[in-house]
């Protein structure tokens, strides 16, 4: 298997001609993934932006077999396809799903959990634009504190629950591999994709995916926001690999929150107090993350090493 990296990325395109908004981060993630995985790929996309913009008769933006799953059923459809091709002896096809944060963290969570439990070889990618974008920016379980959506108009820093930690939710199933990534770190993303496609069992990638109309950011900001969300500590790059936890980037000190939040209209209403609350929540999240990494390092090695 040829290693996936920016240098080895082929020229062929398997996701183009879509009607995604100008500068959409989610489409960038799909394009990179399918370029890297090549033509031996079955794709599952639930209701959401990526299906709405890709299956527009008479044209399909996917250059590989792709189907739309019911909103709540990405995991079930993925593991069903994987079981079928396994029964038919097909070994060289990647079964990959691209689901939004609503489809993953909320309505599709039980289906994802079931699929992770069934241990089929699937690759589940959540492109996280941090709200239900296709239906007009409603708050999801992955919307960060302080972000304005149409159903959290004030941002609700003090009342809203913290963003669901999808990597740890996936890792809690004891699957081989789960990791977070962003549109601003293509080499890191492709390395994780390379790892995810090779493990024997389910793999989960949680990828930061800026949405210019939903976030009120510039159309050229998808990569830059990916970098600043990591530098500000709001999106840790982390990897769960057979029971071992790696924090890929440990900023010695976090960049000012304004570097990231200031570039987006959805955070415009935040005051000093709100920013302090967000910083405190971030620091607590990092403490918990480091404690998790230490705890996993202290535990016995996983039962099924790579």
């Amino acid at each position, binding site marked *: 298997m040829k290693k996936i990296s920016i240098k080895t990325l082929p020229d062929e395109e398997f996701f*183009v001609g879509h009607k995604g908004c100008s*500068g959409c981060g989610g489409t960038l993630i799909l394009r990179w993934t399918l370029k890297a995985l090549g033509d031996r790929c079955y794709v599952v996309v639930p209701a959401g932006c990526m299906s709405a913009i890709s299956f527009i008769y*008479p044209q399909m933006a996917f250059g590989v077999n792709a189907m739309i799953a019911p909103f709540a059923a990405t995991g079930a459809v993925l593991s069903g396809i994987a079981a079928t091709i396994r029964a038919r002896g097909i070994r060289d096809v990647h079964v990959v799903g691209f689901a939004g944060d609503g489809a993953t963290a909320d309505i599709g969570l039980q289906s994802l959990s079931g699929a992770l439990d069934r241990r089929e070889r699937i690759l589940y990618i959540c492109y996280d634009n941090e709200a239900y974008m296709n239906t007009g920016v409603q708050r999801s379980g992955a919307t960060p504190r302080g972000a304005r959506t149409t159903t959290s108009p004030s941002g609700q820093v003090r009342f809203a629950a913290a963003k669901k930690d999808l990597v740890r939710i996936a890792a809690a199933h004891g699957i081989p591999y789960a990791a977070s990534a962003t549109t601003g770190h293509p080499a890191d993303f492709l390395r994780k994709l390379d790892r995810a496609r090779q493990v024997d069992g389910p793999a989960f990638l949680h990828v930061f995916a800026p949405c210019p109309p939903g976030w009120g950011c510039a159309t050229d900001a998808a990569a830059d926001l990916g970098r600043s969300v990591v530098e500000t500590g709001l999106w840790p790059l982390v990897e769960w690999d057979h029971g071992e936890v790696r924090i890929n980037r440990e900023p010695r000190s976090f960049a000012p929150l304004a570097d990231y939040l200031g570039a987006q209209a959805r955070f415009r209403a935040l005051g000093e107090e709100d920013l302090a609350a967000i910083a405190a929540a971030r620091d607590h999240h990092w403490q918990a993350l480091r404690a998790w990494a230490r705890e996993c390092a202290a535990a016995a090695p996983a039962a099924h090493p790579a």
Partner: protein
Amino acid sequence: MSGAPVTAPPCALRPFARETQLAAWPATPQADAGQLVASNGGWRSLWPAIALDACNGCGLCLLFCPDGAMVWNAHGLPEVAADWCKGCGLCARECPKDLIVMQAEPTP
């Protein structure tokens, strides 16, 4: 990115006219995978103009285009596929040498 020159855009524009070509419409969208049936050029308000003289062919503009609209030309240099580009400006922002400038759409 291999840097190997690709002269054609990733996919071709193949317009369909409902009235005259009904029989040619595929039975499923799958039949036309990777084709554009209507140009995305109209989405654009700014055009990415590339100063090719100083370009080292690093390929980052191709990598970061969400639409696959930046392609290699026959000389191994980047070129914008006009029907595919939505004018987002990501290529310009990510070019490490700042060779791409978003400017007013050239008049045909």
